[in-house]
């Protein structure tokens, strides 16, 4: 093989050849199964075994149930709250990492990435130890005299949100760090010399220029949150339901594949809808409104 880079612009054949292995894998193990699931969601009845026909009844069942509708809404709300929480907590970290000398940044990045290498189950059980009735936090609060009896800290929405934010924060930090690395620090000096306070510089220079990274971080975290089911199940208990958990039950416990498939596609469509909306809003701001006032 020659050492000359392949000019993929002028050689579509070469481009296709480079893409082919990954494309084949995705086609075979993602696109084909998804079509199959999509088709399943239009089967009548409660089983896909030998099923035929075409009906929207699975979708109708979902949208006519207040339970499912509220779980869907709640799932989207979780996605938005966790993403926004990650932005708020992750921006300062990502920004300061990007403005650090590379040697200092390396060690800190390892610290941020390490939690991602732990199994999700280990992380969740860790949180259960921390938040349980006999857990560290309860003991600490008791010792400090802030509470008189152990509190139930698990199995509520707040606990689920905290644990989800903890899990997905690294993705947001890395995403924001990467975009801030592209922003010339001199721009912030220029802004300051043009009478801008730190807050103005942040609002009108840093955030707009970091918007692509914030949006991609939002996308990642949102998608991972709405499809989460281990965390809500173990930390949230029976009272906090997310759609991912319901799909899991429907497919693996009830074995109602057509309805599970329909729920999957509703989640997919709503998720894509939210992301499209966010992208549209931000892109519009960048192309039209990113101006002074």
């Amino acid at each position: 093989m020659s050492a000359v880079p392949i000019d993929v612009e002028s050689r579509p054949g070469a481009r296709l050849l480079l893409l082919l292995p990954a494309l084949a894998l995705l086609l075979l193990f993602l696109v084909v199964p998804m079509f199959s699931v999509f088709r399943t969601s239009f089967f009548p009845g409660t089983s896909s075994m030998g099923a035929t026909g075409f009906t929207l009844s699975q979708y109708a069942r979902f949208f006519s149930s207040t339970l499912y509708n509220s779980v869907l809404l709640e799932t989207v709300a979780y996605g938005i709250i966790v993403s926004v929480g990650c932005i708020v907590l992750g921006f300062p970290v990502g920004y300061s990492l990007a403005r650090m000398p590379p040697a200092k940044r390396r060690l800190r990045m390892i610290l941020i990435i390490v939690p991602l290498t732990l199994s999700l189950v280990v992380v969740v059980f860790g949180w259960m130890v921390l938040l349980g009735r006999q857990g560290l936090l309860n003991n600490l609060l008791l010792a400090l005299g802030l509470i008189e009896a152990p509190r139930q800290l698990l199995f509520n929405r707040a606990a689920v949100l905290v644990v989800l934010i903890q899990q997905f924060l690294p993705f947001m930090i890395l995403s924001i760090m990467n975009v801030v690395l592209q922003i010339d620090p001199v721009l912030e000096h220029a802004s300051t010399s043009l009478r801008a306070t730190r807050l103005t510089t942040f609002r009108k220079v840093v955030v707009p220029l970091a918007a692509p990274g914030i949006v991609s971080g939002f996308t990642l975290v949102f998608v991972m949150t709405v499809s989460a089911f281990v965390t809500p199940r173990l930390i949230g208990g029976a009272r906090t339901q997310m759609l991912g958990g319901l799909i899991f039950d429907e497919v693996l416990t009830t074995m109602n594949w057509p309805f599970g498939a329909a729920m999957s596609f509703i989640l997919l469509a709503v998720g894509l809808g939210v992301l499209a909306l966010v992208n549209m809003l931000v892109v519009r701001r960048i192309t039209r409104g990113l101006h002074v006032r």
Partner: protein
Amino acid sequence: MNMSAVPARVTKTNTVVSFRGIEKSYGAFQAVAALSLDIRQGELVCLLGPSGCGKTTTLRMLAGFVEPSAGEIWLDEDNVTRVPAYRRDVGIVFQNYALFPHMTVAKNVEYGLVNINMPKAARQARIAEVLRRVELQHLADRYPRALSGGQQQRVALARALALQPKVLLLDEPFSNLDAQLRVRLREELSSLIRGLDMTTLFVTHDQEEALTLADRIVVMNKGAVEQIGTPEEIYDSPQTRFVAEFIGTCSLLEGRVDEGGDFLSERGLRFPVARRPGAATAIIRPEYVRHAAEAPGAPVHRAVVETSEYMGAATRLQLRVGDARLLMDGRYAPGRRPRAGDEIDIVIDPTGVRFVTDGN
């Protein structure tokens, strides 16, 4: 060089910027040492020196990005040493222009005006005015990436001037431009700044830029000021060896002036000078070394041409006179240029010989 503007300016004496014993240290490293400098209204002062000499640190201290370790900075009547950068009446054009890539030219210019809460109608008028001054009104709605380097520089200038700062700072303003454009923009910028009577401090490592643009030059080396003076003073009467070598080209001869009024170099070159006897370092610019035939009467030295470097208008000869080495610039008709190995007779114009005091 804009000579005509100088006398009028010199009569103005009100000081706009005053550095008073400014120092900046980073741990044990002293970036700027004991710098004192007053800049008058409308004056164009240049900080000149090699990289790491402290010139950019000095500029950044005036802008407010770096806090001095000692000393005071005054702007007009105010001590601004501890005033944050965003409240200083200082405009700055950065080396890479630092235009906001997500804003149009007009919005870049408007940015500072919004920050000082100028009403919209006044902003629009000001934007139109400064863009007209830099002749960019037709590009008001373009984004910076669609502009050439020279145009970007003018936007950066317009953006800084829109706030009508008390002093304008230029950080290596021409280093990102190609040679031809550099000369043209230098003239444009100079006439624009002088037309506005704008007090300006600029930083460069390019001596030609400093000599052509500045009213006064501050030559800096290793954090310390070597000499402050007009371009003529800096070039014609360098006070230190560093200034002599950094600005222009020269031959340095160590030696002493004897009782008879002759300078005698350590390497045996002797010529008459007007100076008290004693140890001295003589500086001779290449243009003051001439062919003997052009200046009859002066002592003639026989020189061997070591190298002959054609530079277009002039030819630079490196000569050996006995053991001493001298540079000489000569102008020759085509084909008459001396070659390496030729022997020529030269004289040293005594009016062109200078002495520096530091013998380091």
